[in-house]
């Protein structure tokens, strides 16, 4: 596996990691609570040499990096998901535990574990540390953010803590690179030290009750120390799942132990937490000194404003408005730049190559097709940047706190709000941002409905159709019918997204409502390096996942529109020839074949062709209509295209083809239809990849198309019945 140089981010396949182990390489795993600066530490240790994938079968992100030590030894670091414990309460915790136990499919058992502790929050962080130490793996403790702890008046004795934990403690400040050299040295030499072990002892009667469970686990292949950790954990959990499933007689032994303890007056569920926190209390007393115990912190003071009953929601709305404002104002110049770059490239390639199929394939197929998606890249990158910024500063948790009550109304968690909001700009970053939603069913529900939010690729369609068919009549003095129509489209998507989410949570993705237990971390200034790395990872992932599919589909659509060839008539102009070519092509023929299908919606075959061609990206509809009507380089604001659409008549009846009713129906169709291969590709990846992900993506495409068709049908037919057809 160690041949791939970053920053590649291919999915990691199980077979590539499990077998051969290079003698010279040291495999380490990094674990810690969320918000401890773990990712920053990981980035500081490994720099750009990282790759991102998924653990096999789950959508937990797997990030690996590497560095060369002072002695020249190659060290790989697996960045485990941020967790508060390895109790198995979530997929993240389950993965972390099975990796540490060496039972995760396709992952090498780590030889060294680095536990990151937040020095400002030592008490809670030590819970995870106490669990990990018991596994008996060589362990190094990175006591991170010691500067912030000192600023808050906390002094932690690292030597004393080393003695308490039985593992070397290295104070670090990851954001400034402090302590990293010592940490690296400690990691390399950790295997020479005595193995850590449980630092507290069980009351004898408890040890006796747990002995049969321990025995079961060691017979199942666990080391005695790992068995001790697992037996205490199982006592609290009660059920045997995941990496321990299949160990003979385990469940029965656990249940017997629980019953015995209850008989002795214990409360088995709370035992592990009480034992560990009992031990932690002593450790804290002996290692942490609070000479300048501060009262209210900066975070407290910020939160008293940001989470204020009245001011809080106002700040939230203003912030969201600002984010959106900047997405459009910052990204627009970049998008124009990308657009002109692609246009220039097309012209350059066109002039270099002789006119013919190859030129057409490259210019009209590849460059135009891929370009229509690349144009959105700046917007996607800016949105990733904002989401990362909100997450890293700690505001994301506050947004979830403010919006949780609202989202609960449709059965979701406050964390679902920002991904859905992102959908107004682009569904791709919104779907990727669902990773912070812990409950898999909530996450899947959110992924399913994010594309219903009207994204910016729908805007060209709305603009063309509204500008052409909706008269700019004043409504109630201050409003304009065109603006209100646009607003109605956005509202329609939003309301439907919420309704469908509620429906999914009550049917397909039904499950016990998961707790909304969430830390509100201290505010901090984001580490710009980590933020930049994060954004570039996401953008790279989007380009690879969506780019390949878009490229293939662009070529396919080009071929369908270019063949069979129609020879231009002698008197035909260039535009008329293009129009004839498209009409007779496979795509044009397909439009005519599906005409009976779209006729009930009030469309003719030309709109059918437009819909078919927009399969890869919605906004392609506009340029296709331009081609059909023989207008080169049509945009949504082209006067020519608008005049042509208004003038279009039925060949037999002479009535206008496009009426305001047809236009509204068509907009409703695009509010709902999932015409975006980029999103499809990202959904495949984020719902588990492979066949599992493909099934979800196909399901999503199908129900959204059905919804689009049904809604457009109802709008058109109801309109006709009401006499609005003219």
């Amino acid at each position, binding site marked *: 596996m160690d041949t791939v140089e970053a920053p590649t981010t291919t999915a990691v396949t199980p077979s590539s990691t499990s077998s051969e182990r290079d003698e010279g390489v040291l495999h380490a795993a990094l674990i810690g609570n969320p918000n401890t600066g773990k990712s920053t530490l990981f980035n500081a240790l490994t720099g750009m040499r990282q790759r991102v994938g998924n653990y096999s079968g789950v959508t937990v992100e797997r990030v690996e990096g590497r560095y060369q030590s002072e002695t020249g030894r190659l060290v790989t670091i697996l960045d485990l998901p941020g967790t*508060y*414990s390895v*109790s198995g*309460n979530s997929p993240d915790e389950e993965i972390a535990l099975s990796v540490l136990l060496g039972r995760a499919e396709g992952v090498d058992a780590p030889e060294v574990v680095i536990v990151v502790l937040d020095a*400002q*929050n030592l*008490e*809670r962080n030590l*819970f995870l540390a106490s669990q990990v130490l018991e596994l008996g793996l060589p362990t190094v403790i990175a006591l991170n953010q010691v500067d912030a702890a000192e600023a808050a008046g906390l002094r932690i004795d690292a030597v004393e803590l080393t003695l308490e934990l039985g593992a070397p403690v290295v104070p670090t400040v990851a954001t400034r690179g402090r302590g990293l050299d010592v940490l690296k040295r400690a990691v390399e030499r950790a295997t020479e030290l005595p193995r850590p072990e449980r630092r507290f002892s069980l009351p004898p009667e408890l040890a006796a009750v747990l002995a049969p469970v321990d025995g079961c686990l060691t017979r199942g292949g666990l080391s005695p120390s790992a068995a001790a950790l697992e037996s205490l954990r199982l006592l*609290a*959990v*009660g059920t045997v799942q995941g990496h321990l499933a299949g160990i003979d007689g385990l469940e029965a032994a656990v249940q017997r132990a629980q019953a015995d303890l209850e008989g002795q007056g214990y409360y088995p*569920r*709370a035992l*592990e*937490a*009480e034992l560990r*926190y009992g031990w932690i209390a002593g450790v804290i007393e002996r290692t942490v000194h609070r000479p300048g115990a501060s009262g209210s912190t900066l*975070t407290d003071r910020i*939160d008293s404003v940001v*989470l*204020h*009953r*009245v001011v*809080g*929601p106002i700040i939230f709305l203003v912030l969201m408005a600002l984010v959106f404002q900047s997405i459009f104002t910052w990204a627009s110049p970049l998008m124009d730049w990308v657009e002109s770059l692609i246009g220039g490239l097309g012209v350059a390639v066109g002039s270099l190559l002789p006119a013919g199929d190859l030129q057409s394939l490259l210019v009209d197929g590849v460059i135009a097709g891929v370009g229509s998606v690349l144009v959105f890249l700046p917007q996607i990158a800016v949105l990733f940047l904002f989401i990362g910024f909100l997450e890293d500063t700690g505001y994301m*948790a506050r947004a979830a*706190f*403010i919006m*949780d*009550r*609202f989202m*609960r109304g449709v059965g979701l968690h*406050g964390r679902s709000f920002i991904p859905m909001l992102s959908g107004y700009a682009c569904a791709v970053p919104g779907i990727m941002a669902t990773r912070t939603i812990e409950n898999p069913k909530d996450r899947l529900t959110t992924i399913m409905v994010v594309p219903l939010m009207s994204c910016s690729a729908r805007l060209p369609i709305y603009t063309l159709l509204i500008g052409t068919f909706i008269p700019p009549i004043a409504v109630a003095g201050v409003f304009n019918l065109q603006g209100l129509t646009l607003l109605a489209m956005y509202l329609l998507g939003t309301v439907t997204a919420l309704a469908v989410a509620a429906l999914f949570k009550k049917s397909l993705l039904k499950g*016990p409502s*998961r*707790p*909304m*237990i*969430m*830390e*509100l*971390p201290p505010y901090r200034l984001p580490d710009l390096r980590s933020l930049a790395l994060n954004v570039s990872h996401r953008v790279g992932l989007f380009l690879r996942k969506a780019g390949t599919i878009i490229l293939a589909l662009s070529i396919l659509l080009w071929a369908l529109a270019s063949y069979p060839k129609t020879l231009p008539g002698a008197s035909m102009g260039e535009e008329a020839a293009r129009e004839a070519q498209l009409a007779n092509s496979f795509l044009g023929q397909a439009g005519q074949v599906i005409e009976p299908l779209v006729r009930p919606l009030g469309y003719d075959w030309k709109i059918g062709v437009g819909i078919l061609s927009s399969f890869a990206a919605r906004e392609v509809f506009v340029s296709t209509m331009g081609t059909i009507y023989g207008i080169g380089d049509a945009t949504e604001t082209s006067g020519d295209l608008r005049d042509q659409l208004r003038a279009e008549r039925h060949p037999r009846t002479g009535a206008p083809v496009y009426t305001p009713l047809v236009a509204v129906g068509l907009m409703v169709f695009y509010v709902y239809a999932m015409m975006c291969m980029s999103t499809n590709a990202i959904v495949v990846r984020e719902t588990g990849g492979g066949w599992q992900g493909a099934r979800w993506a196909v399901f999503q495409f199908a129900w959204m198309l059905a919804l689009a068709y049904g809604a457009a049908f109802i709008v058109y037919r109801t309109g006709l019945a009401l006499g609005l057809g003219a």
Partner: protein
Amino acid sequence: MRHLADLKPGERARVATVGGESDAARRLMDLGLIRGTTVEVVRTAPLGDPIEVRLRGFMLSLRRAEAEHITVE
């Protein structure tokens, strides 16, 4: 018996029992919300739910429905 959900912002109490749905109880106990822990309700979200509590030097938000399963004294 009073519940965590009954406390007003600014009120402190000691946890007596942690009950309710097993996942939630597990998570809370892992985070250090166990018998004897001092908790303070800091504030309520603008829409009335969830609530924010302080324990062991950090801030945690949980829904009222979850806080109703935690008894305090």
